[in-house]
């Protein structure tokens, strides 16, 4: 197991390198630069000076090598948009916010989703199945940019229980976590139900039942183990997405998280910031997919040795 983790982490290095390279050149191919504005720089000399300051005047290959060199020592460079901050600083400041929101949302997603999915799978095609599944589908239909404003209108503006925006108090976590977690909960519920139904018709469950194990034990011990496989596979990238921040939710609730930097950097052509956030996200994805693989092996011992 430790060997597997070690080698996977080792293999992450070329993967990150490939991602960095593709992103770097994709970015430079995209029209518009960090200094393009509605009122563009009138004097070409000034633009040249500015580009020289940020090293944009060098040939692309030199810029690329310089970028890689700095990356090796973990320096992502200065942000173009936030002119007196480095990308490292911005990420260090914004990631914990997004991660916190992500973890609360994950809690909502798993709490609601697993419960609903399992309840639904006990008696398929009954009232117990239809109710949670209908709710889940409504959850999928109502995207975050609709759910967020509705929650704010009801709970902030009408009932005045929470603030309409901001990230200062504990109460400020509630609505964003419900908004973001709600969508994922719907997915988890659907996938759990599907996975459980799949597993419950398997032979070993029948064996367990035949041996006289209690229904709850069958469901929780044997059913959940196999039934969670699709959920776990889904959760890898989902958790990476959750904790690296959601642009929509962070915008709606005015949360200073990483999700906004991720999207805004692309729109601003903030080259260094795009590289930084992309690589950070990539590392998260790789780590979480590794975690998923480990959990899958743990859930299904037959996978060991592959």
């Amino acid at each position, binding site marked *: 197991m430790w060997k597997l983790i070690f080698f996977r982490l080792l293999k992450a290095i070329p993967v990150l390198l490939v991602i960095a390279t593709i992103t770097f050149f994709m970015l430079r191919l995209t029209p*518009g630069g960090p200094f393009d504005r509605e009122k*563009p720089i009138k004097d070409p000399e000034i633009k040249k000076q500015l580009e020289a300051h940020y090293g944009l005047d060098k040939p692309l290959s030199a810029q690329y090598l310089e970028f890689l060199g700095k990356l090796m020592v973990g320096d992502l460079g200065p942000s173009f948009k936030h002119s007196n901050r480095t990308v490292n600083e911005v990420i260090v400041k914004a990631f914990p916010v997004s991660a916190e929101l992500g973890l609360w949302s994950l809690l909502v997603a798993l709490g609601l989703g697993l419960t609903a999915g399992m309840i639904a799978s006990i008696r398929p095609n009954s009232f117990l199945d239809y109710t949670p599944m209908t709710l889940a589908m409504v959850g999928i239909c109502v995207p975050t940019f609709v759910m967020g404003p509705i929650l704010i209108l009801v709970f902030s503006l009408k009932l005045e229980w929470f603030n309409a925006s901001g990230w200062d108090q504990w109460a400020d976590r509630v609505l964003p976590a419900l908004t973001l977690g709600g969508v994922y909960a719907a997915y988890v519920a659907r996938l759990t139900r599907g996975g459980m139904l799949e597993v419950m018709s398997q032979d070993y469950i029948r064996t367990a039942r035949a041996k006289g194990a209690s229904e709850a034990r069958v469901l929780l011990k044997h059913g959940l183990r196999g039934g969670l496989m699709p959920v776990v596979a889904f959760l890898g990238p989902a958790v990476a997405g959750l904790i690296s921040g959601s642009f929509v939710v962070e915008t709606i609730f005015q949360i200073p998280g990483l999700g906004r930097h991720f999207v805004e950097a692309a729109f601003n052509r903030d080259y260094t910031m795009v590289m930084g956030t992309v690589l950070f996200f990539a590392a998260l994805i790789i780590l979480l997919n590794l975690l998923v693989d480990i959990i899958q092996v743990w859930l299904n011992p037959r996978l060991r040795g592959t």
Partner: protein
Amino acid sequence: MFHRFIVPVLVCLMLGCGKSSTSKKSDNPSVHPQILNLGNGAEPEGLDPHVVTGVPEHNVLVALIEGLVGEDPKDLHPVPGVAERWENSEDGLVWTFHLRSNARWSTGDTVTAQDFVLSYKRMLSPKLASQYAYMLHVVKNAKEFNAGKIKDFSRVGFEAVDEHTLKITLAGPTPYFLSLLNHYSWFPVHIPTVKKYGPVDSPNNPWTRPGNFVGNGPFVLDKWEVNDVIVVKKSPTYWDKAKVSLKEINFKPISSAEVEERAFRSGQIHVSNTIPLNKIDVYRKKNPQDLRLDPYLGVYFYRLNVTEPPLDNKKVRQALGLAIDRESLVRNVLRGADKPTTFFTPPDTGGYTYNGGPKISFDPDRASRLLAEAGYPQGKGFPKLKLLYNTSEAHQRIAEAIQQMWQNNLKVQIELTNEEWKVYLNTQQKMEYQVSRAGWIGDYNDPNTFLDMWLTGGGNNYTGFANEKFDQLIASASQESDSQKRFSLFGKAEEILLDEMPIIPIYHYTSKYLASPKVKGWHPTILNHHPYKHVSIKPGD
């Protein structure tokens, strides 16, 4: 199920919004006496007045730094700032500013004439590559120094006569010179502080961080959290601190108008940066005291690429201009907030209002006649025209409405294309468009900022428009010191512009925002400037 679940929620929302918007929370903990919460649109890119370029940056900077002159809170005319008084020479070329002796930096140092000279030297240094350095080009030799042609700064028209006297020599008579001084590019910085945190001419010098920042304005920088808040607190060293009522200002960078409006409604901000179009009618009806629609120094227009057929034909351009029903567009699409216009420079820009010849008000019959004269009777044979705009809901609505007007009135086919902001800028600059949506906000309160962009080969022209007569008129206006004569030159130039029509003016901007009646001293001004030292919050409410 969807029905049963969502409909009641929506119904309760609709019933609820009326009530809660009238009874605003007054016990909100974030609303404290003399703490002003402002919606500031976007996150400022920086706070170095010699580097930044935007409006959100301006809003914060004027709290932190004071220039030579200040602005009157009602009509923005120049009032004493760091300079107590000033005089202008007979020929209008030499300005002498007498600085007050009690002006202080937040370190306690006196603000001296030398500070200004060094600041301007920094602003103009080629290595800093300041994008607004051209605002200083009215000064003798400033342009040359900025371009690196002159290395010796003493030849540039800035001179510290003594500690409290600053002499500025201009390159030509500039009647609007004093109004330039309110722009942050003319603000002084504390050079020793800048040097302490990095090279003086580096655009990303961290001296602007909280803790490092030194200014001379009514407030000092206290906190700066990206995408969250910038907090400034009343300065103990400001010379006029007795006049400053506010204890603290929180600038909140809320980029979505919908989010900002909800924050305003719940009492989290006192003044918003903007308001969603569809909310204008709601506030008109229910909370008119909160709604502010102030004329603003900007114009919304369409650029036409005059270098390619069919738009190289003047009659086609005029036909397009005449076929837009601006009244209907503004009333119905923009909810009557902006001012429909048939000319370019906003009315009363530095005292100038266009009142010349060709009017391009809505006239569909004349429009289709012109199009027929151009060889496209009833739009026959007219190629499909592409209308470019950057993606935004308002631009899209306007483009859709104008598309319909052109199709109905001229029987021509229009194709809409939206592009992401930077791609759109790129397309426009390379002139790879036919019709392109544009906007222009004046840099200073003078018609020059609206008209000199249409000079042949001008940096912001992008239409291919080139007219010798126009160029001459603008050039003579820049040498004219009598304002009436100057305005008549501008008028003639604008008449040429409107007749040739490389651009179709659509409406003049209005600052649309929400402001709580509790905020006092927040007057409507054409630049949407609100000097904070005159602002206060009505106590006991």
